[in-house]
């Protein structure tokens, strides 16, 4: 009986083997050296306030490899990547088995094992090539907008395809010489062998071709190892790290920012955190972040992928710098890009390798702010915050003016209230948001909720200061507000503003135990409705309404249901969902300080969202955030559609239909 195995390294001379091993070794060394250079640059970054836990990191990485994280969201890409990745792994295992069989005393590559292994390897190889074919199709035929059809990518894709093809050819040549029957399991190779035979190639030629192809295959593989750390191919290694070190804090919380007293931030690697530098190198350049960024959609200069890749480029430039120069991120990243960001978090939600995209943008903003390099509008807002305790620059004495006739119960020192209704700056100063506050007061009174307001003891939560990049100013507000809360023994807060909600919930405790509980008004309202404390009369005409998920309530804090429950409880309302809703909600454009910054770009972000809302056929947009309400209202005015579409907060809608 013929032995079911093959002669390892049949037709392979010693020199060829030397070439392969030396080459492979060199290739791995080069890759390792390049990565290590980058690693050393990452280490130059400042502390990221991240607790690195090995067990958790391992768990993250393993889970990701198994369930592939966010990949399944894009079916085609998911399959493609699966085939490429696992195809490659199988092929690599195959090569390793061969190596083990040859170079070590182990002896296993024969018989049934050999048959199964060969079949699987061929399947793997086929999958690999199919996956690559899908990639080529996607990038060059379909021309997906977020994928760049660059020469580099083309070369690397071509290289991988060549490796796969030469590998199969190799098998084909080998089999064609002896044509053993059992090799039918290596169906691709067998098929090729049949073709060669049928083509009338003589054994000598096949042997020569085999040798030549072996060398080619070896060379291409060595090249692959050598190039594995170029461009986004780094992600093969680095992305595992970025996923492993995925942040555990709530999405809505930004990292704290501590600068040493002497530092003068200038956008160099020393001024970025090591995590950001590592992240940037993990980028696969897939462009999913850019494809969901609201600023990009509105034609602004911001391109999140661009920012991340430019940071990765900073690492390269720093690694290869000449003495005396320190490259800066600001050499390639413009201020305009950084100020376009609304901090909506869509980029982070989409990123398949868990890069903290917008955190980098905010970190760069922080550096600009620290040096004072900001626009007059940004300066006006921050200075207004500093001197007048609110980002709208209104006199602080006017904070309670909106409620003068309402005789609201104020907080009394010594009396511990049940609920504090936190109005926030928008609710106090911005006329459109004041009606939200008024509606809430009516509802709370009607439902006999025991609440007080802080009145003039309220001041900004510091959220705009933090998003715009002045961390010191944020800390001031945080400290003052925490002091107020402690002084009054406050432990339960309800607010209608998701920004205040997010900041109180996630950014006022920095890792420690929360000192107080905070809920969003949608949560309180849905609770009151379910408890029957609010009764609704059927007074609304049949209206088509769509709910716009606020980024800071939904994506950042996971609350999608409560506001919908409130809207659904309104009699006569027919609710439709926008295509981009829930976690995929499209930002209104008001976050990240945009409410107070100059607007630039082809379109306004809020107008993009409003058209989307209008396309559902809704004549009413329900919001749960004062910023969303103001932005969408502005959009309706700009588009001349004030009469066709109304924007209302859920509390206003509730108050209108509430039984008194």
């Amino acid at each position: 009986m013929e032995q079911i195995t093959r002669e390892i390294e049949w037709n392979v001379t010693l020199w060829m083997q030397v070439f392969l091993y030396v080459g492979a070794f060199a290739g791995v060394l080069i890759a390792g050296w390049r990565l290590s250079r980058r690693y050393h640059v990452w280490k130059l970054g400042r502390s990221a306030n991240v607790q690195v836990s090995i067990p958790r990191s391992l768990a993250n990485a393993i889970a990701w490899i198994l369930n592939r994280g966010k990949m399944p969201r894009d079916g085609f890409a998911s399959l493609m990547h699966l085939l490429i990745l696992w195809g490659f792994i199988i092929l690599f295992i195959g090569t390793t088995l061969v190596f083990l069989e040859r170079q070590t005393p182990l002896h296993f590559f024969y018989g049934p094992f050999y048959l199964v292994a060969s079949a699987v390897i061929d399947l793997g190889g086929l999958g690999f090539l199919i996956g690559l074919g899908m990639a080529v199709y996607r990038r060059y035929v379909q021309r997906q907008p977020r994928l760049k059809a660059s020469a580099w990518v083309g070369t690397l894709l071509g290289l991988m395809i060549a490796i796969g093809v030469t590998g199969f050819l190799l098998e084909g040549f080998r089999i064609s010489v002896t044509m053993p029957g059992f090799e039918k399991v290596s169906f691709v190779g067998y098929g090729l062998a049949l073709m060669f035979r049928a083509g009338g190639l003589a054994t000598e030629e096949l042997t020569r071709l085999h040798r030549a192809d072996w060398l080619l295959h070896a060379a291409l593989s060595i090249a692959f190892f050598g190039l594995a750390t170029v461009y986004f191919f780094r992600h093969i290694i680095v992305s595992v790290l970025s996923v492993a070190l995925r942040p555990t804090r709530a999405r809505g919380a930004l990292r704290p920012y501590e600068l040493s007293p002497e530092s003068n931030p200038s956008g160099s690697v020393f001024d970025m955190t090591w995590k950001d530098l590592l992240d940037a190198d993990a980028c696969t350049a897939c462009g999913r972040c850019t494809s969901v960024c609201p600023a990009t959609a509105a034609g602004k200069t911001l391109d999140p992928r661009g920012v991340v890749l430019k940071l990765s480029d900073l690492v390269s430039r720093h690694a290869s710098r000449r003495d005396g120069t320190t490259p800066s991120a600001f050499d390639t990243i413009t201020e305009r890009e950084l100020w376009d960001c609304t901090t909506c978090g869509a980029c982070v939600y989409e990123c398949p390798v868990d890069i903290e995209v917008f955190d980098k943008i905010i970190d760069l903003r922080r550096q600009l702010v620290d040096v004072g390099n900001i626009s007059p509008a940004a300066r006006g807002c921050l200075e207004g915050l500093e001197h007048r305790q609110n980002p709208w620059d209104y006199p602080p004495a006017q904070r309670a003016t909106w409620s003068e006739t309402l005789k609201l119960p104020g907080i009394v020192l010594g009396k511990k209230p049940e609920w504090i209704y936190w109005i926030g700056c928008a609710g106090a100063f911005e006329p459109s948001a004041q009606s939200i506050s008024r509606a809430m007061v009516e509802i709370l009174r009607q439902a006999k909720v025991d609440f007080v307001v802080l009145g003039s003891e309220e001041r900004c939560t510091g959220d705009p200061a933090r998003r715009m990049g002045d961390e010191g100013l944020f800390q001031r507000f945080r400290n003052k507000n925490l002091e107020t809360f402690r002084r009054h023994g406050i432990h339960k807060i309800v607010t209608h503003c998701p920004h205040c909600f997010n900041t109180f919930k996630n950014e006022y405790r920095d890792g420690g135990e929360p000192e107080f509980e905070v809920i969003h008004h949608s949560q309180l309202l849905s609770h009151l409705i379910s408890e029957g404390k609010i009764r609704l009369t059927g007074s609304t005409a049949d209206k088509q309404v769509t709910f716009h998920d606020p980024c800071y309530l939904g994506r950042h804090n996971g609350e999608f249901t409560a506001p919908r429950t409130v809207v659904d409880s309104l009699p006569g309302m027919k609710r439709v969902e926008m295509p981009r809703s829930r976690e995929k909600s499209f930002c209104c454009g008001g976050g990240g300080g945009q409410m107070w910054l100059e607007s630039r770009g082809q379109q306004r972000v809020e107008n993009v969202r409003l058209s989307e809302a209008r396309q559902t056929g809704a004549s009413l947009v329900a919001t749960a955030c004062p910023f969303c309400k103001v932005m969408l209202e502005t959009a309706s005015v700009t588009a001349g559609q004030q009469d066709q579409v109304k924007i209302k907060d859920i509390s206003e809608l509730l108050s209108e239909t509430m039984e008194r």
Partner: protein
Amino acid sequence: MSAIASSISDTGFGSDMPLILVLAECYWGQVQKVTLELLGDARKLAAAIKGRVEVALLTSPLHSDGAVHELRPYLQERLHLVEAPLLENYTTDTHLCVLEALLNRVRPRIVMLGATANGRDLGPRLAARMGMGYAPHCLLIRSGTAGRLDITRISHGGRVHVQSAWLMETPLIITMKPGVADAVSTNRSPGELNVERHSADVRSERVRVIEPIPADPKTQDIREAERVVSGGRGVGGPEGFAVIRELADALHAAVGASRVAVDLGWIEYARQVGQTGKAVAPQLYVAVGISGASHHLMGMRSSEKIVAVNTDRQAPIFAVSHFGVVGDLHKVLPRLSNRIRQHKAQAKDVTESAGV
């Protein structure tokens, strides 16, 4: 530094009729309106303290005839005229040395200047040089009890009034806030002009005016403009801004815009008034087709006079306007611009036909 010769004998210091000297404000030979307001105030004060008023005019020989001619219809008082080529433009040194000599000569009890750019430049230093009292940026001078002068000046940008009492005998330099007092009207029966000429040998080595940069509302920063006409959503498009510009031209005003107009690309961002644009506080702000959203109001609510034109009766802008008109700007503005141009043409005709 200078020698003054005079052809008429002096009036002594401490004479029974204290002299109030009004310093005429003159640019490039043109007498400014604030001079007439000062005259009004000076006459009232003179009546109250039984004093007399005289006027000082510093100008170059080139412009003196024209300046005197302009002042003549209003003047009942003696005019001290100092002519020197270097007095054509105001510089501190030239005016200081001339006035020092003049004041030593005529010994006024009170000197009144407008609290204009030049008045505030000169006033403190002249007072220091002469050892006189100084009351800046005043609104009101009253003769008080017990031989005192009660002066009210402004501080805190006009939000607080500061009152002080000065002994009547104290020689005093006062700068008056322009635009408060009523200007004197022309004499019904103009008499002979009483001019006392003084010559002066003026040399200025340290400061030199190179050239004037006239105000051009079209190019100047809107924050510096005294009048602004702003267009908003109601304007309808970039072409719509033509009527805004027309009115701005007629009023010698700068053109501004609301955020909506800028965002829609109808006009450049430099003209945006509001929270994310510029904050302006001109004497006149005309809001055309602007609803008056809070972020816009924040950029213009400190304007002295606000006029609003809008088709929406409920627009928030009407809550802050001093004068509002509910109408179509495309019809109202052209008519208004016409009317203004008509008026200017008529006024010009009158002065020309009066043969002066």
